[in-house]
């Protein structure tokens, strides 16, 4: 006997659970299907648990440098297994939070694997039995993504691990080769290096954090180098095989040996076995093709989050979830501005950006003014003892339009939102300039970078 709902959401990651809640808020009767714990990769295996691990790394670093503050702590011992356990605890708590939100919003959770048999029907195969769910109004697909590997290299989660393995392994290797220096690779390199693992970070593109502004890449390269992390950029991995201390990574720039290899080359949409063909949902370059309201090629079938394409970020998935829900409820949601999605990497120091890099702005033919302000000249940063990094503002020379902002430094991922709001409101440098920033704060660096772009920086 099929069960009927207005909306059936497949997947409960940040895209899925947000869209389900928004649908429920709009008076729709919602079912969600999940083959893992609610919360998806983000809460269980990605964003949240890694932030817990990175916090451990940060605390460890702080304690190791306690003498800088005149605090004697004696011998510092850090148990990596306990760091992972704490991280799992954080993930569990957040996943329970999602379950609570489902109950609160009267959303029915069906544990199991969902398969579409047509554009309105989902067959759920679960441990507790099978169900057929009918979606009266719409289906929302939000099955996310999974780590990708390189051709010829299989992720066995022993010798070659993915972020999924890395986040739950309670033992850390003595040495590791991290393939891919995007956000995931850089964050794990930071965690492992902080705990004493010998890290080699490989990147095929010419620099680490290749999507960020070059200044941020340069800074992270320098600071990681100082922490003993080996970085090789512009190298292509040709093979990964067992040998040496564990694995041997062959590249066009030499051989690298380590106990383990972390594959962090990117993620692929998780769509196999979902029944997209049966529902008439088309793909485009491996991701589901969507309209500005997230509708797929099949009417009434929506796709959001990682499976619907770049950028593969939880906050973009959540925003898409809201748009899809509101469109399904007959509202006219404001389309997502994909040019205004913040990008954040939580290594030490953090890197955050919005808009385009200086190079990209120039490539786009814009005449730019650029302002850069180092945290060494920011009182709060000096007081914190966190002076690495800068705020860099790239603006249109004629109008002061904020084209891009790039921050490396303490709490960069928080400071960036000033510019996210500014860009949404179409503020120009003048409005940022005329906004009084509290003193002393790290955000003053945002003001000073703005002033610097206008040739009026005070504190440098």
């Amino acid at each position, binding site marked *: 006997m099929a069960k009927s709902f207005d909306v059936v959401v497949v997947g409960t990651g940040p895209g899925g659970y947000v869209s389900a809640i928004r649908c429920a808020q709009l008076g729709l009767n919602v079912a969600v299907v999940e083959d893992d714990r609610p919360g998806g990769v983000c809460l269980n295996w990605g964003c949240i648990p890694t932030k817990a691990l990175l916090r451990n790394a940060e605390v460890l670093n702080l304690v190791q440098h306690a003498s800088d503050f005149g605090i004697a702590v004696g011998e510092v011992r850090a148990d990596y297994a306990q760091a992972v356990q704490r991280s799992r605890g954080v993930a569990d708590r957040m996943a329970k939070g999602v379950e609570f939100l489902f109950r609160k919003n009267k959303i029915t959770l069906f544990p199991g694997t969902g398969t579409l048999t047509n554009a309105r029907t989902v067959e759920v195969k679960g441990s507790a039995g099978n169900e057929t769910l009918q979606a009266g109004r719409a289906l929302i697909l939000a099955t996310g993504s999974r780590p990708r590997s390189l051709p010829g290299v299989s992720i066995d989660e022993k010798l070659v691990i993915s972020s999924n393995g890395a986040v739950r392994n309670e033992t850390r290797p003595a040495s590791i080769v991290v393939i891919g220096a995007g956000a995931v690779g850089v964050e794990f390199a930071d965690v492992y290096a902080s705990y004493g693992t010998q890290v080699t970070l490989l990147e095929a593109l010419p620099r680490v954090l290749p999507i960020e502004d070059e200044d941020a890449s340069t800074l992270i390269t320098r600071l990681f180098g100082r922490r003993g992390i080996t970085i090789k950029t512009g190298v292509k991995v040709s093979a990964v095989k067992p040998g040496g201390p564990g694995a041997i990574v062959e590249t066009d720039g030499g051989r690298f040996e380590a106990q383990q290899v972390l594959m962090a080359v990117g993620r692929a949409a998780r769509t196999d076995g979902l029944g997209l063909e049966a529902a008439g949902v088309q793909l485009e370059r491996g991701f589901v093709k969507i309209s500005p309201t997230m509708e797929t090629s099949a009417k009434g079938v929506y796709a959001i989050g990682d499976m619907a394409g770049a950028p593969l970020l939880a906050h973009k998935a959540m925003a898409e979830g809201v748009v899809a829900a509101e469109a399904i409820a007959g509202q006219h949601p404001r389309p997502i501005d994909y040019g205004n999605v913040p990008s954040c990497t939580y290594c030490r120091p953090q890197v955050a950006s919005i808009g385009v890099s200086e190079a990209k702005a120039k490539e786009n033919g814009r005449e730019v003014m650029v302002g850069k302000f180092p945290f060494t000249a920011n009182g709060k940063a000096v007081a914190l003892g966190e002076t690495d990094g800068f705020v860099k503002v790239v603006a249109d020379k004629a109008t002061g339009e904020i084209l891009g902002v790039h921050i490396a430094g303490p709490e960069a991922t928080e400071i960036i939102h000033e510019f996210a709001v500014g860009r949404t409101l*179409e503020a120009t440098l003048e409005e940022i300039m005329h906004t009084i920033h509290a003193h002393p704060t790290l955000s003053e660096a945002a003001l000073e970078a703005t002033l610097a772009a206008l040739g009026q920086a005070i504190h440098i």
Partner: protein
Amino acid sequence: MAVSKVLMPKLSEAMESGKIIKWLKKEGDRIQAGDILAEVETDKADVEMEAFGAGVLRKILSPAGSTVPVGSLIGVIAEPDEDIAAVASQAGGAPATPAAAAAPAAAAAPEMASRPAAVPPQPRREDPAARTPSPSTGPTAPARVAAAPPAAPATALRPAAAASPAPGDGGRLKASPLARKIAAQSGVDLHVVHGSGPGGRIVRRDVEAASAAPAARPVAVPVAPGVEFEDRPLSQIRAAIAKRMPLSKAPVPHFYVSSEVAMDRGWSLREELNALEGQPKISFNDLVLRACALALLQHPGVNASFQGESIRVFYRAHIGIAVALEDGLITPVLRDVHAKSLGQIATEARDLAERARQRKLRAPEMSGATFSISNLGMFDVTEFSAIINPPEGAILAVGSVRTIPVVTADGLGVGRRMMLTLSCDHRVMDGAMGARFLQDVKRLLEEPLRLLV
């Protein structure tokens, strides 16, 4: 805290009085600066009136439904314990302050409310130069506009960018800072831009769309020769001057060319067209509109505007259609007439005229014409000369279609004739140019099948 007078604001350049549709605050309500006090109907639109002073709305002097001149005292804001008798007694339709009395000269002045104590009466002259905003405070000082952007700082921005355009004439103009700057640089008048952002806010894409449509861009006003010019956005004051100066007709050296058009074939064509079922009724004016649009494309020199050091020639025909209202005249603009069929022209022109009479035109529909037509045929006017509506370069005055004796090859016959008189800006064109244009309009109307192809 001083007593604040609430005065009937001047919400558009041409506004002389306003009707209070309704008060959104009642006596006794506490008012913050920026609160919407009332809705006011002006000659062109319904506008929300913002409070400038803070306090309690102590007295409403003009009830909903009343029409009062600009500058009249319509309410009083003060603290509960303040004596307002002296202020309230000034009510009675007469403009309450010298500043308000001079309102026509101060179109840019946001006279939403003024506190006489803070507003020394300034001597005013009718000399336009006297209307230039001065840095000193006074009733016209932009600093009194609540929505005014901060004064332009000394920045690396180009001067044009730094000069953020002032918001609407008293009415708050909602536009993003970036939209304002791009508008300033591309010469787009934000008042004619439709806002697509939240709550009708004008955002970047709206300005870009407006500046991409060349004729939607208001052109600079005609200016006296001998000065250096460039296409620059108009300040509110300049816009007001630009509107008023030509009223004297002096700055635009008009000349006139007239021609009589045989409308016999046009008459039969129109009858045939109007006999078709399911087709919109075509008027003579629609035929003239179509003929002018086609001729304007052939004679861009007539579809042109004087720009000081250059003449701006338009390649699209946006034609203003003078519509008589009970108490005045309004000229809604039919865009891209050259690209429209007679049926389309008929439908859209009628819609514009009807909405003009109901005062339901949207701002973009009231500006951006490259040429205008004024038709007094329905009043049985044989011929007349119209005054050019700057910055347009010409206007066509259309008389009635008369049945008169005409000389034909066979002798004396009866014909239908219509007089056309083209008023031309001599700075833009010469007599021959205007005459050739008129000749083409005449030919199109006399061989009206050309209007259908």
